[in-house]
């Protein structure tokens, strides 16, 4: 019999083909060295919301009925992970600063509406259905790039690993988180309702992430059109250690 995590991961792999293509289109973009700040900014909007969202999810668990056998466990899980993830968005601001994008410039810019939608739907389920939905969100997002891949990107594009510190840190930390997540999910007494909600949350997360990555590519294309550049960074052209190179 398939485990909860096995079934969830199989379902996610079934639906994320387009998302993977869009992620690949970003990472293998011929002008990634120029696109990279936009990529970091988009992810910043997601990462900055993670710890606060988990704290709210924990609060929602605490307010659940005493007859909910999972609520207490979930509250503890979310609070522990909120503490672990706290401040990780600062790594992204550090990476942007290393590329010449001042922190205040990133903080002043409005996050993508697609990022707000990605995160916002989780608040809907926390408040109006059950905070267990957030596990579906985590299952999709907490999948780090490997160090091998990041080093390949750095060699190919000239983007220093120093400017990828957020990705590097998660490459080192998150593989353990994924295994831990799966093990804890498998140990939970999930009802069909819980399983459906986690899956639906994961499906929605994949769909919204497609919008986020589409937006990254679309925003970058407007760089070539000054009239359309209002929403991209207006810092001076970023100078990297070496020019972008073809594979």
């Amino acid at each position, binding site marked *: 019999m398939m485990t909860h995590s096995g079934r969830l991961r199989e379902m996610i792999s*079934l639906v994320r083909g387009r998302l993977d293509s869009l992620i690949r289109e970003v990472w293998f973009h011929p002008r990634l060295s120029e696109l990279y700040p936009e990529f970091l900014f988009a992810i910043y909007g997601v990462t900055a919301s993670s710890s606060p969202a988990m704290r709210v999810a924990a609060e929602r668990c605490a307010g659940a009925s005493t007859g909910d056998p999972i609520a207490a466990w979930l509250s503890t899980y979310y609070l522990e992970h909120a503490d672990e993830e706290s401040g990780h968005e600062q790594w992204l601001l550090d990476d942007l600063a290393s590329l010449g994008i001042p922190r205040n410039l990133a903080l002043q810019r409005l996050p993508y509406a697609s990022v707000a939608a990605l995160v916002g739907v989780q608040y809907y389920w926390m408040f109006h259905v059950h905070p267990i939905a957030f596990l579906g969100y985590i299952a999709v997002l907490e*999948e780090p790039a*490997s160090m091998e*891949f990041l080093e390949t990107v750095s060699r190919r594009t000239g983007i220093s690993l120093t400017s990828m510190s957020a990705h590097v840190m998660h490459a080192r930390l998150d593989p353990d988180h994924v295994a831990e997540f799966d093990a804890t999910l498998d140990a939970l007494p999930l009802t069909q309702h819980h399983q459906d909600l986690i899956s639906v949350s994961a499906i929605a997360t994949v769909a919204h992430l497609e919008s986020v990555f589409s937006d990254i590519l679309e925003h970058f294309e407007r760089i070539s059109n000054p009239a359309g550049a209002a929403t991209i960074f207006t810092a001076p052209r970023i100078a990297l250690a070496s020019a972008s190179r073809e594979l």
Partner: protein
Amino acid sequence: MTNVERLQQAGLVQTHIPLTPDEIQSVNALSPAEIDALISVRAKLGDAFFQRKVKDGDSHRMGTVMV
């Protein structure tokens, strides 16, 4: 109506690019709520373009985002 047929009817499975037997089994094992969600978000399945393998690695190596 099977889950695959529901998704075909919704235009989310390309009838000219069939799912593999494993994919058919996986899709038909999904719950009604999961199928509803797939249709709701218009998640396209079985499209060769979206499922092409990454030349320089795979999706696990690229990662997704970071929580």
